[in-house]
């Protein structure tokens, strides 16, 4: 399941819902992304996240579908927030459940790596001297390539 939302999410509740009623699940792996309060040596006061309604949901659904093709998963969840966020706020939650831990952990790692370079979201950081759009990082692209070249 995927959700793009303004409001915060409750990790405990979401993990519980993900496994509820499925006794075949042996483990859930999760990743939570938070707003940092720094970039390099500069302080971040907050950030605004923009997305592309329609395409973003499609891209997240495609990423989720790809994970299910590659691993034997019981369920997956991607929640990504948009709008105005402050340091310490939760931005993203990615979870994968499976009968065994290896698939769950690998799929969770894959989901966040692919999301970072394929899902249409853009961060604008509020720095001491004004706002700045975050530039895409080569490292993120390398992390995504790892999943492309390994098989």
């Amino acid at each position, binding site marked *: 399941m995927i959700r793009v939302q303004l409001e915060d999410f409750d990790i405990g509740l979401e993990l519980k819902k993900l496994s509820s009623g499925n006794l075949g699940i042996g483990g859930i792996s999760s990743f939570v*992304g938070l707003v940092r309060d720094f970039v390099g040596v500069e302080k971040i006061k907050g950030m605004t*996240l*923009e*997305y*592309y309604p*329609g*395409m973003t949901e*499609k891209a997240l659904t495609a990423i989720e579908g790809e994970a299910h093709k590659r691993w034997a998963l019981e369920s997956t969840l991607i929640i*990504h927030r948009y709008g105005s966020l402050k340091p310490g706020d939760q*931005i*993203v939650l990615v979870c994968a459940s499976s009968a065994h831990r290896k698939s769950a952990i690998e799929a969770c790692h894959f989901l*966040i790596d692919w*999301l*970072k*370079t*394929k*899902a*249409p*979201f*853009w*961060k*604008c950081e509020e720095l001491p001297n004004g706002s700045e*759009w*975050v*530039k*895409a990082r080569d490292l*993120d692209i390398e992390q995504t390539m790892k999943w492309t070249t390994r098989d």
Partner: protein
Amino acid sequence: MRLLYFASIREKIGISEEEHDLPSGVSNVSGLIDWLKSQGEEYAEALADQMVVKVAVNQEYVSVEHPISSNDEIAFFPPVTGG
């Protein structure tokens, strides 16, 4: 066609979306970018670096050779930075 702009490209152009008839002689994304660049300084600047301009046609990533038609939704945005 419906044109959408996001993030830094939206800010440079100054609007988030607009409707246009398909300009005559324009048949693909590359041609549309060239035409838009001739529409004003703000377009020329926002779309100057084709390496950092990503394009989606009907909400799918495409290359600049991708054909376009008058009913398409065409979005321009910088490389994504979510997560």
